[in-house]
């Protein structure tokens, strides 16, 4: 029995949709364990979402429809990207080639733009600070993503994520080439920034001056806030998929459409995401949060890595 392409595509989106909060919960649990605390349940994010969906929602005075529609725009973007990237399969699925990595990057940027716009609508200083900061540092992280895409394009001759994953699988020489190592490291640093992990900001939901990503949703409440929280855990999953299944470990994906292969691919992906989660928890527990003005140095370091990757490729040694 072979699953039809659209069915597998639904599984791809479903995996990211359903497992996203769970991976966040897993990271919080591991992090707490490393600090000697018992920590929240792994399923806690789901309970939080259920609670938020039951609450009433309020909008600030004078906020227009932009404020209310933004969580849904962002959510729709995060639902579209898993169609484009290899979450479960080695082969392209229906609609899988409608955009390349750059297209996925544009969708991520659109989602964060929508939320920043909503934050600007509120008139709340915290939310506006958060959105202005995230756009300021985003001006440096987006070129990093571009350079990572250039590296991919130079290595494979195309910028389809499926093509890079296939290239990496083709031999150990691909995995250790400097351009690949540098691009993957730069991508990891961008992921730490984009998911609001420790060298950039604390992820525990405490309110403080240094907030960036967490501050933007300050004025949302109830189901709207739940959509934003759910969306940001999906964004984390999407970035993990790009790092794991395109760059670092594109093994364990389904090469046929049989239900067992797809099921095993889901389990393998969850295991790999948990592995990355443990690495991120270790980073969270072993570094201090950077001062706000040092964050530009952090993202500049990621930029340096990505540019050096392109340089080594041009030299012929990459």
């Amino acid at each position, binding site marked *: 029995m072979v699953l039809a392409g659209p069915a597998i595509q639904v599984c791809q989106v479903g995996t990211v949709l359903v497992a996203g909060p769970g991976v966040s919960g897993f990271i919080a649990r591991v992090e707490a364990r490393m600090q000697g605390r018992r920590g929240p349940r792994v399923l806690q994010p789901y309970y939080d979402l259920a609670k938020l969906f039951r609450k009433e929602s309020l909008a600030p005075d004078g906020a227009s429809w932009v404020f209310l529609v933004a969580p849904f725009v962002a959510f729709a973007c995060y639902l579209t990207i898993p169609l484009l990237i290899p979450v479960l399969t080695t082969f392209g699925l229906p609609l899988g080639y409608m955009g390349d990595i750059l297209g996925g990057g544009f969708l991520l940027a659109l989602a964060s733009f929508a939320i920043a716009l909503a934050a600007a609508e509120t008139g709340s200083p915290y939310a506006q600070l958060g959105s202005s900061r995230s756009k300021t540092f985003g001006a440096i992280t987006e070129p990093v993503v571009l350079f990572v895409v250039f590296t991919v394009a130079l290595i494979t*001759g195309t910028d389809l994520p499926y093509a890079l994953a296939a290239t990496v699988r083709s031999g150990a*020489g691909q995995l250790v080439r400097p351009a690949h190592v540098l691009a993957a490291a730069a991508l990891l640093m961008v992921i730490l920034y984009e998911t609001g992990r420790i060298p950039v900001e604390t992820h525990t939901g405490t309110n403080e001056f240094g907030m960036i990503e967490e501050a933007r949703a300050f004025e949302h409440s109830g189901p709207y806030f739940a959509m934003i929280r759910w969306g940001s855990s999906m964004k984390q999953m999407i970035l993990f998929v790009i790092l794991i299944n395109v760059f670092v470990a594109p093994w364990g994906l389904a090469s046929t459409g049989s239900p067992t292969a797809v099921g095993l691919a889901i389990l393998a992906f969850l295991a790999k995401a948990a592995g990355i989660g443990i690495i991120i928890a270790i980073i969270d527990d072993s570094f201090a949060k950077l001062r706000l003005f040092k964050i530009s140095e952090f993202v500049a370091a990621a930029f340096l890595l990505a540019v050096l990757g392109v340089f080594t490729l041009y030299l012929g040694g990459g």
Partner: protein
Amino acid sequence: MMTPAPPVFASVANVIAVFVLLAEFGMLRAAMLRAQIRLYAFQSLLLSVLAAVAAYERHVPELYALAVLSFALKVVIVPTVVQRLLRNTNTEIAGSGALGVASETLLALGVTAFGFFSVGALHIQSRILPSAALSLSVAVVLVSFVLMIVRRDVVSQAIGFFSLENGVSLASLVVASSLPLILEVAFLFDLLVAVVVFGVLMRVHHGRSRSLSTTQLTKLRG
């Protein structure tokens, strides 16, 4: 057009060489003098590892001796001596350089690009290591020049000079790894002389001006 992957050994050697360059960038931006010295030790360690890997892969036993010697000297002795000198001066943080960190990094990146492409255009082939490592070594040398020019304290300038030597020995691993061992050892002892000279300079300078900063050296004194 697709870029084929180089052989695994060449890739590993290139990755190590890239990390040598990244350590140099780290030294450029490190504000703590101790962190700078630690980065220098790390860079030297990478170089010893590269020499050992090349010795194993290409069957050049002399390189093992070089790896051991450079480990003992550049990873253990030199950092220890500089740390001890630093401890006597009670200074931990370098004064700000002539430029901000971001502009320093951009400048160094430009210089790196220049080094990369000018040496890459020469198409020098080597039996032992891939030729990209040579371009990387030239980039290391140029960035260490930037480090020595923009930083205004004696320790950073000394570390810049020592890491310049690291860049040169990376280059010599690529183009002249079959150099007689005695010459390589002579280079290493050259480094020892430099350590003594810089040690004396640091002590005298700190004794006279009570700081490690070189900004006061612009005035002539009778």
